[in-house]
């Protein structure tokens, strides 16, 4: 059957694309819209490397169909820095060396941003539970948690 014609807002920009029913939002972002910051880790919703927000709600883009997102707002890692200015989370991830290979990092950043928008002063417990769906095989998580705490403090100061 014919491809679906979808119009959506990605990182504030109106986009339109064609997709097959079986294509996930992650497939569309990476292969059609060339937004390759979102990564495919497990393709089953376990690793969080493909995290994006859909109408402000954190989801795994591998578990959303491209044809479901008509008329909706999607935010990806590509929308996080403003021009050359990194988001405080990105800055703190660098300073704390909260990454090694970097594959999980876009997902951690998008997920952490969604946390801080809801909870400006999260406890370590809250950070760890919120990020339980983001897997990292390099850092051991401590540096990520420290970076998120530090970024939260920076953002509270405005």
């Amino acid at each position, binding site marked *: 059957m014919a491809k679906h014609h979808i119009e959506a807002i990605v990182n504030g920009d109106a986009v339109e694309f064609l997709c*097959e*029913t079986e294509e996930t939002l992650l497939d569309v972002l990476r292969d059609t819209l060339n937004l390759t910051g979102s990564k495919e880790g497990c393709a089953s919703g376990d690793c969080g490397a493909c995290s994006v927000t859909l109408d402000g709600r954190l989801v795994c883009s591998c*578990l959303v*169909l491209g044809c479901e997102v008509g008329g909706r707002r999607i935010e990806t890692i590509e929308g996080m820095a403003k021009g050359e200015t990194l988001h405080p989370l990105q800055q703190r991830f660098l300073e704390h060396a909260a990454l090694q290979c970097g594959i999980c990092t876009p997902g951690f950043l998008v997920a952490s941003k969604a946390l801080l928008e809801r909870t400006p002063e999260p406890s370590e417990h809250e950070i760890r539970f919120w990020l339980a*769906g983001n897997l990292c095989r390099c850092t051991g998580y401590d540096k990520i948690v420290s970076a998120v705490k530090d970024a939260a403090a920076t953002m509270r100061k405005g």
Partner: protein
Amino acid sequence: MRYEAPESVEGAVALLSAATGEARVLAGGTDLLVQMRADVVDPELIVDIKKIAETRAVREEKGGWRIGAAVTGAELKEHAKLKRAWPGVVEAANLIGSTQVQGRATLGGNLCNGSPAADSVPALIAAGAVATLAGPQGRRDLPVEDVMLGPRKLALKKGEIVVSFLLPPRPPRSSDAYLRFIPRTEMDIAVVGAGVSLTLDGAGTISAARVSLGAVAARVLLVQEAAQAIVGSRLDAPAQRRLEAAARAACRPIDDKRGTVEFRTDVAAVLTRRAALIALDRARTS
């Protein structure tokens, strides 16, 4: 593969009834998309029910709560009033997967995925929830314990969907709780799940109770003997022992990589007791 997102229940039912090949309902997609990816299912038609307003609403009805089948775990968590009335149902739904999965996973999907280990199902059964189904013959209500017949087997007829759940009115001094055992702290499938809902009379004696166990049989169980074991008591030590014995007697688990028959049976007794104590404590202060 065809994708349809009708805006009415009737539209969804008509599409599913007319399907000649395999058809699947899409709610949050956290099971369906994984199964499609793994080639476990290869539907010809996908009917997305999230554009149907009824499936996406939480509202008070006849003194109880009506929860749409496609309301997400994250939305339930943010619903302060529902959480006060049914903390066990909401905490069970919130145990499903990660934050990301909570953004999509639904009660309807958790039930219709047909897993005996589904976390929200024992809590719904303990709550006395009734599923409202819609099909080619119209609507019917079915207690949640009668929806799932066995692993991946549902009582739904061709063309039928779960539209919503109705949680009954809550008398004073009532509450519920859900506990599950997993070998890690987060993001795992229940080895055992236990849901308990109870009501106390003015003197603090249990006047009504429902107990449900997950992952200890081919379907989620409503354990009436366990409820009978504590009704009329204040959940003192002998009542707790009777409750544990009844929970244990109801278990018909399998041995698998998640746990042995013996382990699951033991854990079911412990979790049932602990969930009952939490529900009791909540009911006293509700």
